């Protein structure tokens, strides 16, 4: 026998990590969550990490990232943390329920882990929700994002410790948006798996804003899953702002299930982050549902952003409208893979998809794959994709009016971004993000405008 040490594959490492810490990971979980974890790890064992050439991960190879040295907390760890200097990063004039998630765990110093508002809304930590409302949670958790289709969802299901739970009971219109701030703060390289569950019952409206931030210069690896159920005639506005530092890797998986005549708007704005992969899956199960997906990324240096979206039209009379845009500077790379899937019975479908990208340098690179998969005949579907540069004529026009070339470029890029930004519904949020995007384009936004750390400036 040879006495060499067998090197484990990355997949095996994670299986090993789960198995040796099984007790600790599932500590205090009810049986249904334990079952989910087991199912998750079993399907992860089957699929493993997406292979180098796997079609869906062709431009983003994540296995080497996951192979890196990251510590993982199986239970919340105390981290020195000053609430005051923490969050200036709020949106001015936005009155919201602010929930902070620190390293994947709901942070609620001195307050209850789960708030029950007067009108029956439940909002707070998922772990606490599992304990207090097992029936409500088990009806949705792990049911919207299938365990066996996506390796990162399986992995998250096995490992996730906490996240945010939001429940809006029938007929309730939320008066204030929910703002979830995901913070990463650690004294070493850290891996985080967290999970959100949003349930909107019939005839409800809600608005959720998710902000992702890093507070220390360590390497972070986040794998998050958000499951969203939008009930009949419900209206959800979900916006994610990604602004982690340029030494972090983020994989997000958002699975949205829509029932009859519901509406959902999902936005995703990426400003910073070294390697970002966003998986979005919207399934319109009920007749007459409508959805809108917005995406915008502004990247430079060696950043990489990959958006993968699947819009499933599973019932008749549904409409979807998708618009993703990207601006790529320096040696950044981007990828877009959007699929519209129209099921055989989904007649009278209207689905539109557009992906526009601007390359600012010769070293930036964009790969785009807009796809239509259509099995019904009475449909109106279209998609378009462009990769190009700023319009020389427009630049010339502005310059001829005495505006400097640099300023003209900024104006045009700003206008390019406005297409997406103007569709953000909340006015104060729209202004705030427009401001952030403007600063990002000018290079003034180093990571998080109000954060004192400036960790990526070296």
């Amino acid at each position, binding site marked *: 026998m040879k006495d060499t040490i067998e090197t484990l594959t990355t997949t095996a490492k994670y299986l090993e990590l789960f198995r040796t810490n099984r007790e600790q990971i599932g500590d205090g979980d009810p049986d249904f969550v334990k079952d989910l974890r087991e199912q998750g790890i079993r399907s992860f064992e089957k699929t493993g990490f997406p292979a180098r050439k796997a079609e869906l991960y062709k431009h983003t190879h994540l296995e080497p990232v996951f192979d890196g040295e990251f510590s993982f907390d199986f239970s919340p760890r105390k981290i020195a943390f000053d609430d005051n200097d923490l969050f200036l990063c709020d949106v001015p004039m936005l009155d919201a329920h602010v929930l902070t998630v620190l390293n994947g765990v709901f942070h609620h110093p001195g307050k209850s882990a789960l708030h029950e508002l007067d009108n029956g809304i439940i909002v707070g930590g998922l772990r606490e929700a599992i304990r207090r409302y097992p029936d409500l949670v088990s009806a949705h958790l792990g049911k919207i994002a299938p365990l066996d289709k996506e390796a990162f969802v399986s992995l998250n299901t096995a490992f996730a410790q906490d996240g945010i739970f939001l429940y809006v009971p029938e007929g309730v219109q939320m008066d204030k948006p929910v703002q979830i701030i995901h913070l990463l703060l650690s004294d070493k390289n850290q891996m985080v798996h967290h999970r959100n569950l949003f349930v909107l019952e019939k005839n409800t409206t809600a608005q959720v804003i998710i902000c992702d931030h890093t507070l220390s210069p360590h390497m972070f690896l986040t794998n998050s899953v958000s499951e969203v159920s939008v009930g009949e005639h419900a209206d959800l506005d979900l916006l994610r702002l990604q602004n982690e530092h340029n030494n972090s890797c983020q994989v997000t998986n958002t699975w949205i299930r829509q029932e009859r005549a519901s509406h959902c708007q999902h936005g995703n704005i990426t400003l910073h982050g070294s390697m970002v992969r966003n998986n979005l899956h919207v399934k319109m199960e009920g007749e007459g549902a409508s959805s809108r997906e917005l995406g915008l990324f502004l990247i430079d240096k060696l950043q990489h952003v990959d958006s993968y979206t699947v819009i499933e039209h599973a019932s008749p009379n549904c409409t979807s409208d998708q618009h993703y845009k990207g601006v790529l500077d320096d040696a950044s790379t981007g990828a877009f893979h959007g699929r519209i899937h129209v099921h055989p019975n989904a007649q009278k479908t209207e689905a539109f998809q557009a992906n526009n990208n601007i390359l600012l340098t010769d070293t930036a690179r964009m790969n785009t794959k807009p796809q*239509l998969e259509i099995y019904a005949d009475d449909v109106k579907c279209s998609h378009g994709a462009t990769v190009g540069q700023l319009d020389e004529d427009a630049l010339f026009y502005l310059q001829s009016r005495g505006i400097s070339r640099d300023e003209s470029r900024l104006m045009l890029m700003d206008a390019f971004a406005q297409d997406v930004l103007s569709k953000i519904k909340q006015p104060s949020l729209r202004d705030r993000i427009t401001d952030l995007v403007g600063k990002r384009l000018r290079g003034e936004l180093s990571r998080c405008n109000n954060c004192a750390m400036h960790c990526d400036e070296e």
Partner: protein
Amino acid sequence: MTDQEKILNEVTDNDYKFGFHSKIETETIPKGLNEDVIRLISAKKEEPGWMTESRLKAFRHWQTMTMPDWAHLQIPDIDYQDIIYYAAPKKEAKYQSLDEVDPELIDTFNRLGIPLEEQKQLAGVAVDAVMDSVSVKTTFQDTLAELGIIFCSFSEAVKNHPDLVQKYMGSVVPYTDNFFAALNSAVFSDGSFCYIPKGIRCPMELSTYFRINTANTGQFERTLIIAEDDTYVSYLEGCTAPMRDENQLHAAIVEIVAMENAEVKYSTVQNWYPGDKAGKGGIYNFVTKRGICKGDNSKISWTQVETGSAITWKYPSCILKGHNSVGEFYSVAVTNNYQQADTGTKMIHIGKNTRSTIISKGISAGRSQNSYRGLVRVLKGAEYARNFSQCDSLLLGDKCGAHTFPYLEVDNRTAIVEHEATTSKIGEDQIFYCNQRGIDTENAISLIVNGYAKEVLNKLPMEFAVEAQKLLAITLEGSVG
């Protein structure tokens, strides 16, 4: 059932018209594939040693490969040992005039509506008619020879122009390219070879008709077109295959080399047997077509009308290497019953100021699946590259599918790449509009389908456009009239 549905049913229920099997004695070799069979094919074709070696090399590589499964196709398992890899008409004589040709063969072509005599007169089309695998008749060869143009069967080229064949064969599609290219490189039986010397503008449309004839024979054609500096050639390929129950395999390779200022136009009308209404039988069409614009200012244009085959797997591509070179792809793909098509193109921009245009029109009916799959890649050095792609799908019936899978990979900021696609059915308002103006529903559908495909049909050479419309009519008869 509404009128419109009735007509759609009529339209989509049409039988394959060219389903007959001409009884020409053919010589075949036993089923199966191994090195001996390849040596036997090579020996039968009296090939030189280097050719045999090249086939064996390809075969050995093929053995290490597996069939690609990324296409949006359901391909039944193919037993590659259950196929006859060589068949040739027995009366292998060199005819001087049409009188000497087997009357039944002439009759076959007559029934296809493409009589040789007529073709000869019609606008000076030279026909290299390929009946199964051996080139039977090459017309107009003398006229072409005067200009220095070489237009002959591939095996003749191997014998008479070995230097050219050795230099260019596999230079665009190497045997390592893909599974079917490797298979073809190992067992190809015959095909066409075309060489246009410097400064010559080919005075007529070159044309070949492929036809699969002997049951159980996979047909492995190989075409090589070389256009030297400052040349122009238009090449037509058309095929109809007889009715047959077993599935047949067709894995062809087409290579085009365009030098400086050369222009090559390659048009195809493909109507292999698509299988019956229950999806039984039909041809498997796995084709690798690729052209390289080697010199500056060169141009390669692919036009295809795909109506046949049970399964189509075909991506005519252009490598735009020379500066200012142009690639074009125009396609109409019609699928009916249980047909499946996964077709499209690849445009690889390498040189500066390269331009490409992709126009793809898919029409699906019955229970068929029709996919467009295309890649546009702009490399770093391809400054000011420009691409425009448009892929439209038309759905006739609610059981069929239409899919679009474009890939855009851009590595250069000066490049402008655009893609747009739509999927729709014939609108009731469109039909109503026509009805209102006194056009009945049947003619209205015909009008709309015609208009829909027109952009591509217009690109076909005149002589070919007639046949293309005929073939469209077979799949969509009653509407095209």
